[in-house]
């Protein structure tokens, strides 16, 4: 109502303003045209100085009611003629002013030139009254106001009527819609009041409510259905999940129950998993290494065979590494690298199984050592068989021979006696041989028998034992102060006595024996290849001036029953140096010999310093003992 009123007023105002402006412009144009007509008709009057004619021309303006005044000025601006002729001169401008027509308070007035063929002849002045126009506009205004008032009354009456027929049902419809939306109640229906468009709208609204109600029911049903489906799916998923968890745990248990180390790597050689055995072996937990590059976790593996093996497996190869020594644990493993492939046949995982074979390897080593020992025993046995076949047979043959001779010359007591003596000595010799062999074979190397031994004491007791022989041979034995060592006292005694006895026996001169000792390091010993470097040894040197032997037999002298000298005058079982060698070896030492025929022989004995004695060893020779 208000809007339409404003629109009406605005429209009227716009129309009024437009009319006003248009009317003024029209008047101005009309004035200009009128002026032009007067000017054209005044040219000759002005040109030929005919004021009467000019006044007549102006008088024609009588036809125009609104023209209140007019005037013509000559070319010099002097008043030439005026209209109405009776108007006092002071009502009219004395001289021409600004050209063009302008509105003053209640007039439209202005000046216009009078010219002929481009020659200025004078100026015209016109003044017209605006009262008419203003009257007209006043009338317009009154009509507009009345029209607006009538329009308002009409609009009010019509809207009242419309409200009854249109607005009221629509407002009721809106109320119903509000109830529906507020209470979510789609069973409410709007009341239809008429069969016009509003009635149709009401019907459509009610129909829409019915549709919504039906759809609501459908949606609720669908929702229920969907919820049931979701519940079913969720249950299925949970079951599948449970099964999967169980499966995963089962797999994990299998992995963790393995006694072998099992690790899985991805294609970038990053840990995917590590079983319990692996965690125990590396003393690390899974979560510390999963997703990390193997060489980042264990830098020792960077340039190891393990990374190479993994890379081979990445190419699809089943790799078996029989004896791999781990840089991490320093243990021996038999490693398997098994490539796992995805559906497309590309390697995506590598299972590494490391089977610890350290114990087997150690057992193997022991077995090999035992084997070596056994081989050695076998060799010794062969030597023993050799002894049996040669050396032991010799006295047996003698016994046989002299026994037969004794039978043959049983009636000759002198011969018989001589033969029986021979048999007796042969038997004696056999006894000695057997004793020596037994002695050799019984040489113990049990560590339990190792005690502290002062070698000086050992030497002194030997001098006592060999006193007669030394005296008989007129031998000179020099020695310095020998160290105290750990060893088996009887064997060391045997070692020394054998060597000294040999020096006394195999000598055609008055024997001179020098015994010296010193500490050496394995690094400084060149003549014994087997010697252990960095180990400290006591080096004991026995040198004599005996018959000696060719150096080429140096290795043979230590073999059992090896006799270089067949000289019957020199007694011997051929087992002495073999015993010496065995004793030295029992003490984890080494014995070597240097000899030159007719000059003499020197034995070098290296005994490891097993336990450093409190008695300090001295190199001095000031305590030389000369046995006489």
């Amino acid at each position, binding site marked *: 109502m208000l809007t339409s009123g404003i629109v009406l007023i605005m429209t009227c105002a716009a129309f009024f303003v437009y009319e006003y402006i248009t009317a003024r412009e029209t008047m101005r144009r009309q004035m200009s045209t009128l002026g032009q007509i007067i000017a054209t008709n005044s040219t000759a009057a002005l*040109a*030929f*100085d*005919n004021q009467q*004619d000019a006044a007549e021309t102006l008088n024609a303006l009588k036809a125009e009611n609104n023209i209140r005044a007019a005037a013509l000025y000559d070319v*010099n601006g002097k008043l030439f003629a005026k209209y109405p002729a009776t108007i006092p001169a002071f009502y009219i401008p004395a001289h021409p002013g600004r050209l063009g027509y302008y509105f003053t308070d209640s007039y439209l007035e202005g000046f216009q030139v009078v010219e002929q*063929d*481009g*020659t*200025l002849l004078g100026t015209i002045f016109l003044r017209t009254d605006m009262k008419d126009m203003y009257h007209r506009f006043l009338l317009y205004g009154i009509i507009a106001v009345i029209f607006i008032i009538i329009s308002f009354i009409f609009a009010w009456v019509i809207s009242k009527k419309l409200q009854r027929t249109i607005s009221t049902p629509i407002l009721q419809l809106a109320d119903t819609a509000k109830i529906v939306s507020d209470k979510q109640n789609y069973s409410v229906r709007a009341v239809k009041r008429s069969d016009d468009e509003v009635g149709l709208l009401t019907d459509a609204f009610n129909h829409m409510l019915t549709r919504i109600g039906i759809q609501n029911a459908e949606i609720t049903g669908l929702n229920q259905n969907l919820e049931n489906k979701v519940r079913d799916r969720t249950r299925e998923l949970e079951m599948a999940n449970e099964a999967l968890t169980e499966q995963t745990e089962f797999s994990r248990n299998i992995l963790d129950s393995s006694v072998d180390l099992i690790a899985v790597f991805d294609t970038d050689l990053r840990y995917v998993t590590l079983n319990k055995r692996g965690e125990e072996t590396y003393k690390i937990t899974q979560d510390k290494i999963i997703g990390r590059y193997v060489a980042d976790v264990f830098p020792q593996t960077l340039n190891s065979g393990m990374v190479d093996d993994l890379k081979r497996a990445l190419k699809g190869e089943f790799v078996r590494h029989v004896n791999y020594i781990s840089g991490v644990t320093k243990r021996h493993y038999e490693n398997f690298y098994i490539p796992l492939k995805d559906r497309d046949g590309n390697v995506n995982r590598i299972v590494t199984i490391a089977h610890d074979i350290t114990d087997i390897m150690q057992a193997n080593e022991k077995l090999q050592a035992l084997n070596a020992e056994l081989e050695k025993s076998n060799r010794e046995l062969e030597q023993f068989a050799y002894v049996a076949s040669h050396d032991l047979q010799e006295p047996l043959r003698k016994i046989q021979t002299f026994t037969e001779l004794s039978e043959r010359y049983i009636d000759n007591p002198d011969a018989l006696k001589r033969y029986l003596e021979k048999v007796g000595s042969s038997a004696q010799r056999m006894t000695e041989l057997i004793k020596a062999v037994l002695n050799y074979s019984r040489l113990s190397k049990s560590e339990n028998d190792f005690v502290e031994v002062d070698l000086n004491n050992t030497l002194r007791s030997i001098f006592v034992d060999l006193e007669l022989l030394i005296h008989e041979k007129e031998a000179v034995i020099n020695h310095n102060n020998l160290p105290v060592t750990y060893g088996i006292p009887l064997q060391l005694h045997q070692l020394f006595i054998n060597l000294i006895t040999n020096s006394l026996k195999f000598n055609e001169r008055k024997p001179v024996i020098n015994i010296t000792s010193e500490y050496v390091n394995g690094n400084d010993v060149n003549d014994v290849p087997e010697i252990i470097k960095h180990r400290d040894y006591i080096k004991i040197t026995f040198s004599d001036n005996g018959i000696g032997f060719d150096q080429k037999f140096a290795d043979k002298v230590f073999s059992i029953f090896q006799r270089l000298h067949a000289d019957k005058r020199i007694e011997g079982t051929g087992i002495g140096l073999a015993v010496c060698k065995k004793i030295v070896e029992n003490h984890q030492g080494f014995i070597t010999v240097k000899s030159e025929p007719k000059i003499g022989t020197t034995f070098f004995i290296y005994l490891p310093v097993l336990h450093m004695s409190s008695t300090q060893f001295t190199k001095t020779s000031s305590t030389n003992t000369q046995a006489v």
Partner: protein
Amino acid sequence: MMAIPAFTQKASEYQVKAAFLFNFSKFLEWPPEAMGEPNEPFVVGVLGKDPFGSNLDEIIAGEKIMGHPMVVRRFNSTEEIDKCHILFIHVPGKTSEALNALKGKSILTVSDDEEFNAYGGIIKFYTENEMIRLEINIQAAKAANLTVSSKLLRIAKIYE
């Protein structure tokens, strides 16, 4: 705007007449053959003794009519007149002869002579209430093949 021919209350008779002579050029039309080429002069002539002094020259000087420069020429006899558009005839007693001599030419003839229209002259100056007025012989103008503006006719007396 052009230089304005001036006549004031104090203007002499011949000053006013000189201005009228100039103004005739705006209220009459000459046939094209009389006007000739655009650069050909438009001649305002005086036949006989010149009464204007310098007034005519002052008004005409520098003016143009339809592109034709306006010039003032003075003639002693009709024989001298070859080309002329407006001619003021001031030969007392010999006016009729002069007009006869000029018959057939497109020349606006003007004179103070009382019998000028009767002789066949086109425009006659006369004085009424101390104002200079015009009398036009329309037949003569037609004979000279000149067209007179109705505006001019309205303020002039028509010779019958």
